[in-house]
């Protein structure tokens, strides 16, 4: 099968409007004849469910939390980008497009990114209309800030809780449709498999997480909006429940998985403090606007930060990247921190941390200004660590944060399985090899509010009058029994190690060999160890309780079992991509100064993996990327 990106012809700026015109429409009376399943109620899923229901479709929406309002999008702090150019600082659709393509190190599809930038403005309008309390100027206009090193101020924010407010906007729109009976919500319901029949997605098989009941749900189309998979690293900034199960099961049913090795490591997280650590907390990137990052010049310096004299401090980002200093993109900041820690100059538990220091900023701007800007972040930091950042430097360390990789989708956001759409972080679409700050929220909402609702109609209109496959069809029965078999198998291993124990080990492998920097030898090693670990998981895991009840151990076990497979694909992809680009840094491919060196000749493409059966090597397909509007250049932040 060749990968058809279905990018419409014509000039970049007209592609989307022309495409919207060419897409087949479903007339209003017919919309209510269609059922659409949406798995996920985050920004992408929530927005899509509400919008499709408003349009008249019947929607079934699923999430694993007890309420759609708790989807992981809620945790986003910093903000959302849009090319409104309210600040009159030279922003435009084209600049947002360009920054995103460049930030992604020229590994994304131009047309998709342009469309994203194009609809970004409508997103802000929509959210404001819903009552999202964005920050305002005294004149009553929307406030913006510059974020993640952007040269323009295009980030809209609601205190440090932007994701929460955007999600609540979508959630409220969703609840409105639930009240109208257009959406049926299934909280605490986990999708465990996809049903494909006649080469089309027909529905899903779920487990009711309270009663344990396995059920089939049928629809005319299935949309996955299940978020990212960086919990494969065990420790990450993602919520504990974030998982790769939905996309992994879809992959095993025939959807291609694109660029699994593109995982973003966020530079400013609170370092690990012990073996019992269960997750890592992100400290907003905005801290880098005023904080200075440093480590002691000498390895093993055990003094408190305020006791280290200026001359014995190495402000390594300012030293290496004089132009951008502490505001270099995430991948570069993370790697630089790792380097100094590898040299033994790290601070915090196990030498895995660097200082983020506000001493200068407080001296320059005064405590009050700093409190105004970062007060709630400082409080959060103190609550977790017990240290007061007004008095002593914060300690930070990079942590896995976001997955740019995901299921491959075409311009219409449809996967390689007809009728299966993938939106939000779950797809691979817009961020290339690295995502810019405040762009994930934008993409999730773009997909959910403004792209999918158009493109899905085109597919549905082609299947008018066919109706969903009945759930008593053999295709459902077959998948259901597979799902049951797997659960029984997990419950019957009766080994001696807990699920978390395995997950932690898997995470360590991924972090060591497929984390911030990667190399052939390490990846090869990981590819040997992961299957071994997986095998021992199925031999030695201990899952207590029964299937027909609320059983958190079982939930976790299923997710970790899938991560065990996903991790292998991630490492394989990292091994095959013999270049460094964005967050994917291969030690073998760097410039003399230690910067990432792309190989445009051989790797200006998307790698999309096809499942070929257990025990067989997956097949790698490529979608060539063409750059007609921007010229790939070496990213330079010196």
């Amino acid at each position, binding site marked *: 099968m060749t990968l058809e990106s279905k990018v419409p012809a014509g000039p970049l700026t007209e592609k989307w409007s022309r495409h919207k015109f060419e897409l087949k429409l479903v007339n209003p009376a017919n919309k209510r004849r269609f059922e659409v399943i949406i798995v996920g109620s985050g920004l992408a899923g929530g927005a899509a469910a509400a919008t499709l229901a408003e349009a008249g479709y019947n929607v079934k929406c699923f999430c694993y939390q007890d*309420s759609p309002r708790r989807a992981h999008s809620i945790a986003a702090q910093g903000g959302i980008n849009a090319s409104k150019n309210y600040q009159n600082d030279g922003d435009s659709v084209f600049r947002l497009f360009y920054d995103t393509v460049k930030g992604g190190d020229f590994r994304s599809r131009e047309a998709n990114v342009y469309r994203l930038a194009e609809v970004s403005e409508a997103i802000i309008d929509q959210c404001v209309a819903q009552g999202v309390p964005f920050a305002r100027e*005294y004149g009553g206009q929307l406030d913006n800030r510059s974020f993640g090193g952007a040269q323009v101020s295009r980030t809209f924010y609601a205190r440090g809780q932007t994701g929460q407010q955007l999600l609540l906007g979508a959630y409220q729109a969703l609840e*409105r449709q639930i009240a109208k009976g257009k959406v049926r*919500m299934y909280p605490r319901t986990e999708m465990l498999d996809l049903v494909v029949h006649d080469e089309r997605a027909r529905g899903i098989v779920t487990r009711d997480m309270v009663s344990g009941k396995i059920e089939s749900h049928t629809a005319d189309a299935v949309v996955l909006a299940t978020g990212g998979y960086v919990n494969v690293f065990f420790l990450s900034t993602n919520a504990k429940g974030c998982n790769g199960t939905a996309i992994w099961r879809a992959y095993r049913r025939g959807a291609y998985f694109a660029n699994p090795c593109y995982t973003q490591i966020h530079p400013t997280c609170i370092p690990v403090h012990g073996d019992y650590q269960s997750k890592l907390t992100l400290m907003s990137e905005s801290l880098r606007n005023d904080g200075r990052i440093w480590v002691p010049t000498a390895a093993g310096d055990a003094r408190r930060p305020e006791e280290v004299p200026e001359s014995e401090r190495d402000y390594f980002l300012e030293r290496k990247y004089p132009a951008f200093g502490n505001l270099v993109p995430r991948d570069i900041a993370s790697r630089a921190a790792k380097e100094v820690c590898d040299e033994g100059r790290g601070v915090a538990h196990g030498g895995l941390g660097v200082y983020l220091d506000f001493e200068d900023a407080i001296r320059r701007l005064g405590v009050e200004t700093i409190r105004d800007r970062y007060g709630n972040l400082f409080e959060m930091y103190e609550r977790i660590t017990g240290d007061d950042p007004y008095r002593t430097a914060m300690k930070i360390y990079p942590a896995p944060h976001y997955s740019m990789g995901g299921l491959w989708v075409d311009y219409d956001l449809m996967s390689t399985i007809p009728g299966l759409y993938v939106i939000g972080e779950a797809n691979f679409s817009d961020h290339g090899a690295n995502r810019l700050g405040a762009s994930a929220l934008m993409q999730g909402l773009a997909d959910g509010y403004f792209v999918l609702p158009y493109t899905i109609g085109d597919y549905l209109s082609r299947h008018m009058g066919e109706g969903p496959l009945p759930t008593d069809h053999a295709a459902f029965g077959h998948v259901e029994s597979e799902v049951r078999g797997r659960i029984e198998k997990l419950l019957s291993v009766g080994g001696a190690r807990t699920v978390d124990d395995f997950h932690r080990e898997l995470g360590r492998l991924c972090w060591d060999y497929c984390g911030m920097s990667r190399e052939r030898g390490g990846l090869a090693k990981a590819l040997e160890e992961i299957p071994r670990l997986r095998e021992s998981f199925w031999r030695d895991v201990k899952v*207590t309780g029964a299937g027909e009840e609320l059983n958190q151990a079982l939930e976790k076990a299923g997710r970790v079992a899938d991560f065990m497979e996903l991790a292998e694909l991630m490492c394989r992809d990292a091994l095959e991509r013999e270049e460094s680009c964005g967050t994917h840094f291969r030690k073998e491919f760097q410039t003399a100064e230690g910067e990432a060196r792309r190989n445009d000749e051989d790797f200006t493409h998307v790698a999309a993996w096809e499942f070929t059966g257990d025990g067989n090597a997956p097949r790698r397909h490529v979608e060539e990327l063409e750059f007609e509007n921007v010229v790939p250049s070496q990213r330079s932040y010196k």
Partner: protein
Amino acid sequence: MKLHLRVWRQRRPDAAGAFADYDLDDVSPEMSFLEMLDVLNERLTLGGEEPIAFDHDCREGICGSCSLMINGTAHGPNRGTATCQLHMRTFADGDTLRIEPWRSAAFPVLRDLIVDRGAFDGIIQAGGFVSVNTGSAVEANLIPIGKPEADLAMDAAACIGCGACVAQCPNGAAQLFTAAKVSQLAILPQGRPERARRVLGMVRAMEESFGACSNFAQCEAVCPKSISIGFIARMNGEFLRAALAQPAAD
């Protein structure tokens, strides 16, 4: 640190529950409260017992999943702190901790410490939104909103829907949760056209499942976002205005 835990265990919604006692003697003060439970759960699992079920997800105080009554206080002793942000350094060596689920007729226990908070979604369904379809919005800066109003609306909007207000309230009232949403949308111009309908609907939905407010103010004390009971007053005002303006036939 050594700790003694008394934890509510209940296998199914309709089963009887009871407190079970556990001793932990290797608790690090740096651990979060939920990590302490993780450690206990690992131990239980290895010993062949079932781990304690509790709700959690983000573990950074924003998703509103975590919901533990700790020594008689929702989310434990620290102000403005969700259970997941609570760290063991708050407690002393040798402490006994009693851990219970939220208790409310509207929040039935599903298992151990997990309850069903679906009634909150019901309150939102009754009007906690602005009726605007995707695509019908006007240009964002056409609606100027003063900074003080925007800030006040944000104070209310910060609610994470955890249910601590209900859990702590001697009356099991959901006033703070409901009032936060009613207020946010009443303060902002976008929410004004529907304000009467909204408050009447939401209050009715609230009172179907929850108790009434006696102005104890304990909700504010335990709210992880420290949302002010001033918003409850605002909701009351909204409600009275809407009810009195209603045509008599209604």
